């Protein structure tokens, strides 16, 4: 099917060479070495979350699928980075095109125009671009948890590439680009500090749609599908927490007060999510589990992601509790309804993101509200901001859901998305990679 598009490849290269020849002059900003140093660290920390996610997800599947599942995260590191450098940054942070559907700036094609550009924040634009690129990697990798253990590897690769272009880049443009329509909604914009709507809601909702579309794993829910290595899941959860400081505190694109506020909120929400989940589980099941505490940590971190810039520690504490309660309920409902969101991409990221993005409204610090009131020309109430948040969340949910359905149908038509029953029984590792994860358990 794809063969007929091959004739287009030479034109793509031609386009590339034309664009590379454009040289862009540096603007006048000075490099702030403090901010730049922190943003470099943040960029590395967010990348660390991807192997963290690979370990988190990898430990939760059955032994025969451990490598195939980890490959979903690692493949995203390769595919999404190249797409980001080629067109992603231009689509997210270029000026509006097509009525603001996404952005475009041909100087950003392969980042050719930012070679000596320095942002007003005192950071080389390369650093900002690479930092933002890490978000484009982890978001599609999160979706993979919803359809773990049952998709063809090459179809997954095509899916995340298309999803990045069609879903992530427009959403990112709407929420974070200066001319994005959600960035300018209401008095002071829809609040999404580090990616509650862009990353977690979009990935969670898309995961839910994909899980429903592709159907449950063979034998689900009768067959027991135990995690192969919870120790690895715990390590992965820990790496995610550490990496999240880059994700949230780095999203201030500063190295100062706002960074410290985000960092503190992140730590508090993760901790309150963890203890809330433990208490809920101990009360409901009688025991606090290891998987439970990492789930609580993640729920808290997801919920504080949109809020880290605007809530004080008490607000972060409350958001962690709400996140664990709602995510726990969501998983109970999932079990009742019987659909197979295998690793709870929607249950944790979708629900946690929605809870955080909406409930943060009630914990916004006064200085932010005062600023919004000034921008609105007098007054701005939390109920007005709540309307803005609900609108942003609804738009993210609908846009991600509709586009994901289209992409699933397209990928399924082109190459088939779901593994064959044979491949699924055999395991992804053997079927698609011809390897096995735990060779060392057997003498060989």
């Amino acid at each position, binding site marked *: 099917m794809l063969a007929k598009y091959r004739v287009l490849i030479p034109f793509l290269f031609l386009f590339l060479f034309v664009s590379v020849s454009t040289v862009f002059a540096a603007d006048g900003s000075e490099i702030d070495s403090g901010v730049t140093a922190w943003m470099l660290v943040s960029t590395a920390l967010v990348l660390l979350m991807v192997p963290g996610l690979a370990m988190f997800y990898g430990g939760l599947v059955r032994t025969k699928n451990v490598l195939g599942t980890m490959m979903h995260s690692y493949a995203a590191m390769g595919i999404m980075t190249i797409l980001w450098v080629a067109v992603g940054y231009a689509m997210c942070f270029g000026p509006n095109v097509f009525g603001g559907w996404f952005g475009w700036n041909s100087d950003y094609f392969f980042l050719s125009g930012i070679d000596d550009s320095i942002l007003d924040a005192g950071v080389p634009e390369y650093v900002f671009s690479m930092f933002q690129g890490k978000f484009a990697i982890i978001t599609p990798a999160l979706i993979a948890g919803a359809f773990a253990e049952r998709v063809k590897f090459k179809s997954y690769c095509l899916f995340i590439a298309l999803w990045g272009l069609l879903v992530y880049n427009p959403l990112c443009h709407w929420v974070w680009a200066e001319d994005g329509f959600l960035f300018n909604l209401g008095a002071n914009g829809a609040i999404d500090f580090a990616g509650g709507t862009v990353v977690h809601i979009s990935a969670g909702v898309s995961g839910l749609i994909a899980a429903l579309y592709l159907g449950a794993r063979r*034998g689900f829910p009768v067959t027991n599908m135990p995690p192969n290595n919870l120790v690895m899941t715990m390590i992965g959860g820990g790496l995610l927490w550490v990496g999240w400081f880059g994700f949230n505190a780095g999203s201030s694109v500063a190295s100062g007060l706002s960074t410290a506020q985000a960092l503190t909120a992140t730590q508090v929400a993760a901790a309150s999510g963890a203890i809330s989940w433990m208490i809920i589980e101990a009360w409901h099941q009688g025991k606090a589990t290891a998987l439970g505490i990492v789930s609580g940590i993640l729920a808290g971190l997801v919920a504080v992601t949109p809020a880290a810039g605007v809530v004080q520690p008490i607000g972060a504490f409350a958001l962690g509790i709400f996140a664990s309660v709602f995510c726990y309920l969501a998983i109970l409902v999932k079990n009742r309804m019987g659909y197979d969101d295998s690793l709870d991409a929607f249950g944790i990221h979708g629900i946690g993101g929605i809870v955080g993005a909406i409930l943060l409204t009630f914990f916004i610090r006064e200085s932010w509200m005062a600023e919004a009131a000034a921008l609105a020309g007098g007054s701005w109430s939390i109920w007005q901001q709540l309307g803005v948040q609900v609108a942003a969340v609804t738009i993210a949910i609908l846009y991600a859901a509709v586009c994901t359905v289209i992409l699933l149908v397209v990928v399924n038509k082109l190459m088939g998305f779901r593994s064959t029953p044979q491949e699924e029984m*055999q395991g992804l590792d*053997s079927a698609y990679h011809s*390897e096995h994860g735990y060779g060392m358990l*057997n*003498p060989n």
Partner: protein
Amino acid sequence: MKLVIAIIRETQLDEVREALIEAEIRRITVTRVSGHGKSADEEIYRGKKVVPGLIPRVRLEIALNDEYVDVTVNTIINTVKAQYGPGGTGKSGDGKIFILPLEECIRISTEERGPEGI
């Protein structure tokens, strides 16, 4: 009473287990084992084809009363060879089945012995 020991590929374990359950054979023990027979399975590590010295397999142990031996053995053989299509010949590496006489069987909880214990 007989003890059936079957050595099969790891990748066919689920199929065989499901087929056995379908045939009402539900009490089995599974272990990971390594060994070598005539088969040489190739794997790929960093683009290089390698043949491991000892090949991982799984071993099923099934204790049975005599009348169930045939159905069990046939189920395992048919399921393993299903991948070659109807009437297809198998390949080396498909595995082996050993059938041993079983002297005694005791269910610990009730201390039932012999055929009742199975």
